[in-house]
């Protein structure tokens, strides 16, 4: 389902007040404060650190803090090769994240197993968790990671939040 999130605003007519739909407002809050949980496994973690450093600042997109605790994070960025030994840990950490949560699979290894087609590598993290955005590259340039974040923001902006919440509330009562 999609929702319309255009926040129409004309300062001459409306002054200091923005009138919009609840969906649009909630989505705007969510998408501009995505706190990533870096699941930094291998080389892509270094590029993720470079994204967080001062040249390709990720905090200007609202992802100010890299929350290493899954309970406090919105988006898990799987950066690096997921091996079978590590797969269970990734799944467990994903389960610990509270809703709403999203996943960015960064790099070739996280998306499809990359150039490691061997006995120990999980061929894509989407075998165990649902992925929202795939970023290609080995490792992807930091600009590509930021582009992925912007695409994720577009995707979040179109989620019908209020309808989902009211549907859940109706189920419970």
């Amino acid at each position, binding site marked *: 389902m999609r929702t319309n999130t255009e926040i129409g605003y004309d300062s001459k007519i409306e002054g200091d007040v923005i009138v919009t739909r609840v969906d649009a407002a909630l989505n705007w809050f969510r998408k501009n404060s995505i706190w990533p949980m870096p699941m930094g496994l291998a080389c892509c973690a270094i590029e993720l650190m470079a994204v967080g450093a001062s040249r390709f600042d990720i905090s200007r997109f609202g992802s100010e803090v890299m929350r290493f605790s899954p309970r406090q994070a919105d988006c898990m960025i799987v950066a690096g090769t997921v091996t*079978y*030994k590590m*797969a*269970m840990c990734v799944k467990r950490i994903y389960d610990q994240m509270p809703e709403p949560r999203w996943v960015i699979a960064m790099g070739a290894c996280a998306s499809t*197993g990359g150039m490691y*087609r*061997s*006995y*120990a*590598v999980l*061929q894509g993290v989407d075998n165990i968790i649902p992925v929202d955005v795939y970023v290609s590259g080995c490792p992807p340039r930091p600009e590509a990671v930021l582009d992925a974040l912007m695409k994720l923001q577009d995707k979040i902006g179109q989620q019908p939040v209020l309808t989902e919440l009211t549907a859940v509330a109706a189920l419970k009562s």
Partner: protein
Amino acid sequence: MPPLEFAQKLKTKFGPVISEPAEFRGEITLKISDAGHIAEVCEFAKTELGFDYLVDVSSVDNYGEDPRWTVVYHLRSLTHGNELRLKTDVSEEKSELPTVMTVWKTANWHEREIYDMMGIRFSGHPDLRRILMWEGYPYFPLRKDFPLAGKPTDLPGVAFAKPAPLEGGPFVTVAGGKDAIEREPRVRTPEG
């Protein structure tokens, strides 16, 4: 003292167990015919000849030949700067040889890795368990008859493993094939 003299000293001390030193690209290799003597040879090399640093322990799978395993030790001396390579063969039925942990403590993890990857056991090792694959993994991955894509395993609650889809690749060549046609890269199944 030139490196060949160290090899000669080992040979005079241990006699027929040690082969003639072979030289390739400036490195001296000695072959030990009986793997049971490896700990004594290494002890002598460390205490008398000054090879106090163990660089690496590796293993080679001579698939199709007997003895199947070759364990390779790289010794180095930080005092006189020379290096020496010791090789010893182990047959597949035995698959066991004494540990050199008593000589150099660094052999601990190297031998655990060899056990994990090849399945060669080290007698006298205090803690021989898997180091790179998870506990309970049923295969030894670096053996030549184990396919690169892996075999499916199932360890409920801990991990699962599906063979990686190769889909017609990688196009593998064969090392040391007898002619260019045999070495030609093409899709190879592990049996062929």
